[in-house]
C-alpha cells in the first residue's frame, strides 16, 4: 500500500454557485521515502494541492470530491483532533518565505518546544534537547544560542533551516515543501536543497516538492507531476520527463529554460497565458496555446495515455511520436 494515495481529488473555491474548481481529477501515489516534484506555472494549483493534503484549505475553498488516503485513512474525513495528530506529526509542511513562517514574537526555542509539546507528552527540558538535536541536524552554527534568539536576529537561509528543523521535529513520514527556496538567493537555494535531499534520504522521509524550478526537480526528485490549470497533465519518473517530455506543455516548459535558447536570440516561451479558472476551455485546457491542437483537443477532455513509464493527458501523444519517428528516419536518410 502506498503511503499517500490521492484519488480523484477535487477542490473548489467559491460561493453557493459552486464556484471555480481549483483542482480536478488529481490522482497520484507516494511511497515511503519517495521524493516527488510538483511543477507548473503560477496558478496551476500546486500550492492548493499541498494545502489540501493537510486539509488546510480555508474558506471559501473546500475539498468537494475524491479522497486523500494517508496509510489508508481518508484525511478529508478525519475529525479535527485526529487531523491535528497528523498535521506536523506525520505530515509536516515547509512554506515559501522563511521571513513569514516564524512567529516574530516567540523565540526559536519556544516555537520548537511548542510543536513538540503539542504532540508528545514530554517534559520541557527534553523537548528542548530534541529541538537542539534537530537544529544540529540542519547544520545551524551554535544551536544553543539560536534557541533563545528571535527570528529577526537570523538570516533568511538560517531561518529556512530552522523551518526545516521544525518540519523534522516529529520525524514525519511526509514533508510537503511549498517552494522552499524561492525567497532565498541562489547559493543558499543550492545549500537548502542539498540539505533537504540529505535529510530525506537519511530519515527515509517522503517529500512532495512544489516548485517551478525544473533544475531543482531534476536534482532532488524521483518522480515528477506536471500541473496545468488545476489538472495533472503529465506524471512519471523525473528522468524521463526531463529528457523526453511527452506533453506539449511540458515540452514548452523545458524549451523555456534559458539554456535551451540559441545564444543571442530571444528566450523560448509558451505563447499566451494560462486561462483563468472560471474560463477553462472545454476539452484540453492547454489547447489554445498548443501547437498541435486539433478539433478533438478543443472538444474532449483528454484522458491519460501511457507512454513509456509516464502518464500523459494529451490526445496527440501518438501523433507526435509518429512525427518524431518520421523526422528521425528522414534525418537518417539525409545522413545516408
Amino acid at each position, binding site marked *: 500500500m502506498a503511503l499517500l494515495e490521492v484519488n480523484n481529488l477535487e477542490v473548489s473555491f467559491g460561493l453557493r454557485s459552486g464556484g471555480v474548481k481549483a483542482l480536478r481529477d488529481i490522482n497520484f501515489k507516494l511511497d515511503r521515502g519517495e521524493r516527488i516534484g510538483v511543477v507548473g506555472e503560477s496558478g496551476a494549483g500546486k500550492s492548493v494541492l499541498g494545502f489540501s493534503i*493537510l486539509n*488546510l484549505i480555508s*474558506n471559501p475553498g473546500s475539498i468537494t470530491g475524491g479522497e486523500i488516503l494517508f496509510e489508508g485513512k481518508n484525511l478529508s474525513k478525519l475529525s479535527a483532533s485526529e*487531523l*491535528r*495528530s*497528523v*498535521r*506536523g*506529526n506525520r505530515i*509536516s*509542511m515547509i*512554506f*515559501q*518565505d522563511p521571513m*513569514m*513562517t*516564524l*512567529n*516574530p*514574537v*516567540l523565540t526559536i526555542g519556544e516555537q520548537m518546544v*511548542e*510543536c513538540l509539546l*503539542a*504532540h508528545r507528552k514530554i517534559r520541557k*527540558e*527534553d523537548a*528542548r*534537547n530534541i529541538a*537542539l*538535536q534537530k537544529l544540529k541536524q540542519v547544520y545551524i552554527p551554535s544551536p*544553543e*544560542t539560536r*534557541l*533563545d534568539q528571535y527570528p529577526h536576529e537570523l538570516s533568511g537561509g538560517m531561518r529556512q533551516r530552522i*523551518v526545516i528543523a*521544525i518540519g523534522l521535529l516529529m520525524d514525519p513520514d511526509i514533508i510537503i515543501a511549498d517552494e522552499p527556496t524561492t525567497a532565498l538567493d541562489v547559493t543558499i537555494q543550492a545549500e537548502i536543497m542539498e540539505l533537504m535531499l540529505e535529510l530525506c534520504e537519511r530519515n527515509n522521509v517522503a517529500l512532495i516538492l512544489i516548485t517551478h524550478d525544473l533544475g531543482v526537480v531534476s536534482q532532488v526528485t524521483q518522480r515528477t507531476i506536471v500541473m496545468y490549470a488545476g489538472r495533472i497533465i503529465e506524471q512519471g519518473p523525473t528522468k524521463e520527463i526531463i529528457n523526453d517530455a511527452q506533453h506539449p506543455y511540458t515540452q514548452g516548459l523545458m524549451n523555456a529554460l534559458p539554456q535551451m535558447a540559441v545564444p543571442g536570440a530571444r528566450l523560448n516561451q509558451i505563447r499566451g497565458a494560462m486561462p483563468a479558472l472560471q474560463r477553462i476551455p472545454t476539452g484540453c485546457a492547454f489547447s489554445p496555446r498548443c501547437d498541435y491542437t486539433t478539433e478533438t483537443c478543443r472538444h474532449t477532455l483528454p484522458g491519460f495515455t501511457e507512454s513509456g513509464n509516464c502518464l500523459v493527458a494529451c490526445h496527440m501523444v501518438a501523433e507526435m511520436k509518429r512525427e518524431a519517428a518520421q523526422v528521425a528516419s528522414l534525418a537518417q536518410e539525409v545522413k545516408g
Partner: protein
Amino acid sequence: MSDQTQILETAPAAPGRWHEFKNSHLFHSFTVDRVAQLSFGIFMLYVLLALFAPFLAPFDPYDIAQIDIMNSEIPPSWEEEGEADFWLGTDAQGRDMWSTILYGTRVSLLIGLCAVALQATLGICIGLCAGYFGGRVDSILMRFADVQLSFSTMMVAIVVLAVFQAAFGTELYQQLAMFMLIMVIGIAEWPQYARTIRASVLAEKKKEYIDAARVIGLRSPRIMFRHILPNTLSPILVISTVQVANAIISEASLSFLGLGMPVSEPSLGSLIAGGFEYIFSGSWWITVIPGAVLISLVLVMNLLGDWLRDVLNPKLYKG
C-alpha cells in the same frame, strides 16, 4: 541520554531581561523624550501616593472618630485662616483634604485599573474570537459590539446604577459601590478593545506563521492566545493607557452625579461633587484641589498613551 544532558548544560542562559530592556527602542525613546519622562514621573508619584496612602495620610478619612465637625471648611495652611495641621484645608465635614485626596486617588486609580482590566479581558477574548473564527461568529459578536457602542457609556452607567440604587436601597448600594462601578464601566466599554483587536487579528491571521502554526497541529485557542495575541499587544497597550484615564473620568462623572462612590468613602469625583456646593461661599479648595489632581492624573496618562502610541508604531520608527 548522558549526551543529551551535556547539551543542556552547555546551553547558555538567555541574556538578562533588564539588559534587553535597557537596549530596547522603548527605553531609548523614553530617555530622550522629556514629556514622557515628566508624565511618567508624575504618574508614578500618584501611584506611590495612592499605594502608601495609609502611611502618608495624617488622618484616616474613613474613621469617623477622627473627624470633628468643628474643623469644617478650614482653608489651606497658606491662607490667612489656615491651620498648620491641615495643609490643604478641610472639607465641609471637617475631613483633612490631603488625607482625603490621597485616599480618593487610591479609590479612583483602583476603579480605573480594575475596570480596564475587565474591559480588556472581555474585549480581548471577544475580539480574538471574532477575528479568528470570522464568518457568523464575527458578525454576531461585532453587531453586539455595535449595539453596545450606540449607547453612550454614561447613559448605560446611569441607568444601571440608578435602577440598582432604587431596587436594592442606598445602603446596599453604598457597600457595593466600588464593585458596581468597576462592573458598569468595565462592561460598557469592552467594544473599544474588541474592535481594535479584531482588526489586528484580521491582519495577523493572513500571515504565513499562522498557517505554519496550524500545520504544526496546534489547537485554535493556543494559536489565538499564544501566536496572535502577542502580535497585537502594542495597540492593546496604547488603548489601555487611554482607557484607564477614561475610566477614571467616567467614575468621577458618575460620582459627581451622585451615582458613584458614597461620601463616606470618597473618590476624586465624589470629592469634587461634595465641594461643589461650597464653591460660591468661598470654600474653593474643596473642589479645586481634587479637580486639579484629577485633571493632572488624566492628562499625564493621556500623554503617556500618546507617547506609547508613537513609539510602538513602526511607521514612525526613526531608528
